[in-house]
């Protein structure tokens, strides 16, 4: 019997999908052949190197993370990166279906492919990759785009300390914040002044004091790399004081501040920087617009919107061109950006967004030992099995995810609510069918410093106002007026959404059962994560954990999705 390589691989994939005990390492190696070696043995190019990860959300261990099946681009953003999902993404970037990269970058066949390719990320595996790349790229800077200190139980319980220590061990050189700020201004200052001083730069040109507009943190840092002066400018999430509780950082003001960004770029250039990189937590749509308005930036290494984009977007502006990248989330990817700089100018670049397959990268012993130490005191609590999930649980998608639906169901049942809201967060790990849900998994979805669950009487008019407001933060045609989260998840109530419509008329036909929601009628609405000061209520992780313990087995969740108008053919739907 003769079998060519492709047939052999298809057989392997089929065997693996069918549940044969195939070593995914073997499969990955067979599939890519020399390419897998090439993947992590990426040859050095040029003389200026940046490694970038972002939005790891405190995931120290390898996890499953499903990419979105809905990520709509509206207006000028329609059909362009990062608003491509599933097969549309594969096609746009020339990625082979069913390959390891197809699994990393899309939601396609997620549960089955996860069995084949295994978990992704994990700081011990990331550390091995970083060490390898640093060995081949002397002087490389490791940049952390933020959302690093939040997203896990151990991060919350140590107020970010486990991640601060892990990042120091990983050798992060510079970072910029978003969720970090939700530990409060004092805690952030304490970490920056005590833990990071002299070891890691905490950069943000767009965080100023509310009174005089003084810089709170260093706006940028310069380094000489292999004889080339380079500058890295920090840009924290501009809308932290709006999207997260204002009271946690009462004396700081943020915003995009692109005029100030231009001044900082000019200053860095004036000091001789031959390469200027922005370490951004703007979100990719905002980065794309900023790149068109601010001149003199060579590359924006971005995060916030959790877009794993295989190739950079090249944006033209009055001063030349800027590369815009977004490096995914949850420790799943590491960006490698190489510049060839000669005669004071960039002559060329190479970029690769590397998926971090835990099975292909041995754990770094020192990092693994550190993670063990962090978890040891909490192990019993973290690993408590609450229930078994019969279905796939995931969060990503513009409108809802099965994990969010589970939270909505738990809230409505526990609190006796007709309707439930859950925030459109983009972090939160995935659970495969048949996997046990542990307390740690629940914390992966909920670990925030304002976890209060609530039950509120709301008029139909208020419900509509909230949906319209959040929807505009997602679909406003101007990226500078978007906040980068997803639509609030809605349980119990059906609605129609027209993303192309104007603010105030996107949400229609809201119904509870078959009855239309009435503007003046009052409804019981459960929710969590209120941003207002003084809110109270049982932490949502306890509500969900109790509900799961009672259920023992959780049937597959069907996410409540709005009926979409005007989105047919949009490649932001898989």
């Amino acid at each position, binding site marked *: 019997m003769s079998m060519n390589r492709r047939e052999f691989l298809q057989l392997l994939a089929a065997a693996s999908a069918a549940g044969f005990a195939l070593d995914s390492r073997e499969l990955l190696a067979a599939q890519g052949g020399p390419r897998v070696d090439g993947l992590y043995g990426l040859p050095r190019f040029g003389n200026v190197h940046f490694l970038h990860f972002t939005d790891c959300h405190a995931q120290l261990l390898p996890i499953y993370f499903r990419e979105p099946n809905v990520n709509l681009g509206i207006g000028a953003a329609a059909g362009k990166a990062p608003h491509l999902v599933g097969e549309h993404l594969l096609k746009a970037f020339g990625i082979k279906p069913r390959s390891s990269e197809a699994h990393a970058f899309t939601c396609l066949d997620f549960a089955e492919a996860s069995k084949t390719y295994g978990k992704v990320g994990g700081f011990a595996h990331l550390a091995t990759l970083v060490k390898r790349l640093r060995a081949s790229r002397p002087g490389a800077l490791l940049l952390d785009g933020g959302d690093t200190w939040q997203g896990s139980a151990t991060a919350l319980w140590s107020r970010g300390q486990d991640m601060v220590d892990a990042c120091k061990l990983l050798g992060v050189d510079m970072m910029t914040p978003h969720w970090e700020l939700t530990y409060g201004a004092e805690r952030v200052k304490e970490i920056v002044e005590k833990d990071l001083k002299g070891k890691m730069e905490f950069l943000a040109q767009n965080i100023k004091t509310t009174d*005089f507009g003084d810089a709170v943190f260093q706006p940028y840092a310069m380094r000489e790399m292999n004889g080339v002066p380079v500058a890295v400018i920090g840009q924290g999430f501009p809308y932290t004081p*709006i999207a997260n509780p204002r009271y946690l950082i009462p004396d700081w003001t943020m915003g995009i501040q692109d005029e100030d960004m231009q001044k900082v770029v000019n200053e860095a250039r004036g000091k001789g920087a031959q390469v200027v990189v922005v370490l951004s937590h703007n979100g990719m749509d905002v980065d794309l617009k900023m790149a068109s308005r601010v001149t003199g930036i060579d590359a924006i290494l971005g995060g916030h919107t959790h877009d794993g984009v295989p190739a950079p977007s090249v944006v033209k502006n009055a001063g030349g061109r800027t590369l815009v990248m977004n490096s995914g989330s949850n420790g799943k990817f590491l960006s490698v950006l190489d510049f060839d700089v000669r005669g004071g100018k960039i002559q060329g670049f190479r970029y690769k967004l590397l998926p971090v397959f835990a099975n292909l990268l041995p754990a770094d012993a020192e990092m693994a030992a550190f993670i063990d130490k962090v978890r040891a005191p909490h192990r019993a609590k973290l690993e408590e099995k609450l229930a078994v999930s019969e279905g796939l649980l995931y969060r990503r998608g513009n409108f809802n995810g099965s994990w969010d639906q589970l939270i909505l169901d738990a809230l409505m049942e526990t609190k006796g609510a007709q309707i439930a809201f859950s925030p459109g967060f983009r972090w939160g790990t995935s659970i495969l069918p048949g996997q046990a849900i542990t307390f740690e998994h629940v914390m992966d979805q909920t670990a925030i410093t304002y976890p209060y669950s609530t039950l509120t009487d709301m008029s139909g008019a208020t419900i509509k106002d909230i949906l319209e407001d959040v929807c505009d933060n997602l679909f406003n045609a101007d990226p*500078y007026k978007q906040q980068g989260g997803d639509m609030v998840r809605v349980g119990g109530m059906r609605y129609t959404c027209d993303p192309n419509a104007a603010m105030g008329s996107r949400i229609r036909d809201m119904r509870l059962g078959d009855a239309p929601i009435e503007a003046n009628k009052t409804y019981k609405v459960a929710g969590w994560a209120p941003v207002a000061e003084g809110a109270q209520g049982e932490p949502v992780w306890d509500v969900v954990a109790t509900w799961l313990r009672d259920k023992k087995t959780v049937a597959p969740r069907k996410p409540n999705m709005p009926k979409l108008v005007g989105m047919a053919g949009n490649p932001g739907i898989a």
Partner: protein
Amino acid sequence: MDALRRTLLKGAGATGAIAAAMAAGVLRPSQVLAADINRAAFEAKDIAGALKAAGATNVADSTAIAIKAPDIAENGAVVPIEISSSLPNTVSLSVLVDKNPFPLTSSFEFANGAVPEMSLRVKMGQTAMVEALARTADGKHFIAKKEVKVTVGGCGG
């Protein structure tokens, strides 16, 4: 540096700051005392009425007026706005918010060649256009606009 500036300002107090501005010729006493305030313009309930009452006819759009304001307000109750004009001989700058019950929020006059720059905080109940109106010494009016979004917040990624 910052701490020193704060201490100095605390010592000087608001009266001192205004006295200094008057001495520098930035503000005329009449403005400080609000003696010749254009009441009709401030009491107008829409932009057109305010412009008319302010004597602003044939208003031309201008890119020489810069508005620095947030794209999304962090707090609609105190939205920081900075206005400056590079139009030669700018003698007056006013700030209007189209959706406010009384759109004209403030009007400043710049005498003796004072640099036409100012910053202020305005209250906004909803997403609206912030409009900056400039008058030059020859009596001509120019305007620039920027939308500021006001949102309930929460739910960020």
